[in-house]
Each structure stands twice: as structure tokens, then as C-alpha cells.
């Protein structure tokens, strides 16, 4: 039995959970909540994953794998899926882009939850711009997001995270094509059963 460690609010963890559902292998994975914010290196996770990142996957052989894109590749292989079509580098570029948006979102979230006296406005502005730039790029690429692949899952979890933590950004306002795509993708059972909270 594989074990996936990480809390329900993390978009990276969610990517793995969505993938497990799309691949139909949830019966092979035990999902275990774990505190996500890695400031405390003494969490039980430290013994498993020295970089103390979530998600972490404990494989059947007891070894640990991370980070989310690696876990997705691994789940895809064990599940015999098609989340990573061979040599589809355009798809992986889109996945990278979605990752970048998620990275910036998490950095922004990390910054605004710091003690107030340690928050750096310039840093917040930079991450905010990165999110906007990523959204603008994705808006033009919506036509390529048709399939259920690693990129589509990453984009969807990224947008879901914006809804969850940065609802007031109103990302749908300027990105109608992306909003329409997300409306459909978000209705999938794999997304509905993994809503952040």
C-alpha cells in the first residue's frame, strides 16, 4: 500500500490526489494528512523526506519519493496511465508553466501569512505579477488543454488554489476562455472530491 502524505489545502498534494483518482488507483494509496508548512524540521515527515516537502509518497518498498511532478510520473507508471504521453514536450511545457503559477501562489501565501513585521511588499508584488503573467499565457493556450494529462491537472489545481486562497483576485474576469475550461474540468469527480479546505 502506497502512502501519500500532505494536507488537503496544498495544490501540490491535490495534483497527486486528482491523478490517483483519474488513474483509478485510489485503492492502492492511503492518503495521510500531514502539516504542510515546513518551518518545523522536527515533524515526523523529516525522517522520511529530509527536504520536508509535501507531498511525499511512500512507495510499496518503503522508500520515499518527492516532489509532486515526480510522484505524478510514478503514479502514472504504476497506474498504466497516459498522463505523460511519450515525448510530448509541449504538454510538459504547459505543466511547467502551471507549476510556476502554483509556486508563485504559494510564495505569495507564505509571505502574507508571515508575521506582519517581516512581510516584504516588493516580493508580494513580484509573485503577484508572475501569477498574472502565467494566467495570461494560459488563456492563449486553452485550446491545448483538452486532454486529461499532467498539464491539465496542474492547471486545474493551480486555478482551484487561486479560488481557495486568493478569491478576491477574480482571475475569471480577464480570462474567459480559461474560466470556461475550468468550469468543465472542475466538475470532474476527481476535482470535486478533492476540494481544498
Amino acid at each position, binding site marked *: 500500500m502506497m502512502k501519500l502524505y500532505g494536507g488537503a489545502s496544498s495544490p501540490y498534494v491535490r495534483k497527486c490526489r486528482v491523478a490517483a483518482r483519474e488513474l483509478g488507483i485510489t485503492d492502492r494509496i492511503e492518503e495521510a494528512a500531514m502539516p504542510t508548512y515546513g518551518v518545523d524540521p522536527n515533524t515526523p515527515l523529516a525522517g522520511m523526506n529530509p*527536504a*520536508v516537502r509535501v507531498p511525499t509518497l511512500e512507495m510499496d518498498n518503503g522508500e520515499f519519493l518527492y516532489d509532486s511532478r515526480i510522484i505524478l510520473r510514478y503514479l502514472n507508471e504504476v497506474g498504466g496511465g497516459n498522463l505523460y504521453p511519450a515525448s510530448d514536450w509541449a504538454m510538459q511545457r504547459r505543466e511547467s508553466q502551471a507549476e510556476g503559477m502554483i509556486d508563485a501562489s504559494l510564495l505569495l501565501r507564505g509571505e502574507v501569512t508571515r508575521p506582519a513585521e517581516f512581510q516584504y511588499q516588493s516580493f508580494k508584488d513580484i509573485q503577484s505579477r*508572475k501569477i498574472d503573467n502565467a494566467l495570461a499565457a494560459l488563456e492563449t493556450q486553452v485550446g491545448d488543454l483538452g486532454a486529461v494529462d499532467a498539464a491539465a491537472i496542474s492547471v486545474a489545481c493551480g486555478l482551484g488554489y487561486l479560488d481557495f486562497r486568493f478569491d478576491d483576485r477574480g482571475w475569471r474576469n480577464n480570462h474567459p476562455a480559461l474560466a470556461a475550461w475550468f468550469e468543465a474540468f472542475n466538475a470532474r469527480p476527481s476535482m470535486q472530491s478533492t476540494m481544498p479546505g
Partner: protein
Amino acid sequence: MKLVGGLGSPFVRKVRVVIAELGIIDQVELVPSAGKPGTLNQEQSGVNPIGKIPALVMDDGSALFDSRMIMRYLNEKEGGSIYIDGDWDLVRRESQAEGMLDAGLILRFETFARPEELRWDGWIEGQSQKINQCLDSMEKDAAALARVDAASIGTGCGLGYLDFRFADWGWREGRPALTAWYETFSQRQSMATTGPTAPPPA
């Protein structure tokens, strides 16, 4: 193809090491660009909307990132052995090296680029412990570093970064296997010509 990124970046270095090991230096033009951690270099954002470096710009103008994606792409294109199909232990150790690098960059930003009054001790302590835990794990797995692959390249570039930006860290203390391995690995041509203190390419 063009590789965009600063010469001091350990992520750029990983890609440059792979390019050298695959023997394709003449196929990739290096476009050095300085980027302060946490800023958005306008010159890069045209190529690369999220400002990630390194980015590999293809002949058709599209960009591929991040560093591990670029490494996989070049490896597949050249039929190399930087990654081995189905070798998940290699991938695990590569991820670990990447985690250490991420922590190092975060620490660099926190202690260098961030205004002094906005530095948070708890955060610095946490990232530092992550780095040490990764180093201990690498020491334990040192025998597996014998092969030149994504894991050993990631590890080598990570240790090089510590030497460069955190010279007082003393990562070698208590880690004899890792130290001995690095002594040899860092002298490979691919490493010696891409180090942060190596002369810039002609």
C-alpha cells in the same frame, strides 16, 4: 537552442553540466542574464512569462523550463543516460538534491536580498536544518553517486552552491564519503568549466 540564465545559478549550472556531458555544447548558445532572487527580470519575462531561469529557448521561439525538465528533454534528444527509465531511486535522489538547492536559494534570498529588518529567524533556522538533513541523507547514499546522472549532477551542483554562497557552512565535516566523492566529481571537465567561479565561456 538558447539557454537563458545567470552563470551563478546552480540550476543553470546543472543544465550546463548535462550539456557538456552529452557533448552538445556547440548546439546550445548560452545567454547569461543576471537575476536577483525573488525579482522578475523583464528581459526574461518576454521569453518566459513566469521568469523562471534557466529556460531553454527552442529554435521556434518557445521556451522549456524548469531545469529538470530541460535536463530530461536534452537527455532524451541525445539518447543519453542522465536519466534511466524506471530508476526511481535515481529520481528520488535527484529530488532530494533539488530540495536542498531550493532551501539554499530560499536562504540566500532571506539573508541577502531581503531587507535586514524583514528577515525571520524561525524561517532561516528551518531552511538551514533542511539543508543539513539533505546532506546527511546524501552521505548515506554516497555510493550511488558513482554514476554520472541527474542525481549526481544535482548533488554536485548543490554542494558547489554551498561552497559558493555559504562558505562557512562546513558541509564536509562528518561527511567523509560525500567529501571524497565531491573532490573527484568537481574536477570533471563539465563541472570545472561551469562553476560559479569558472571563467565565463568565450
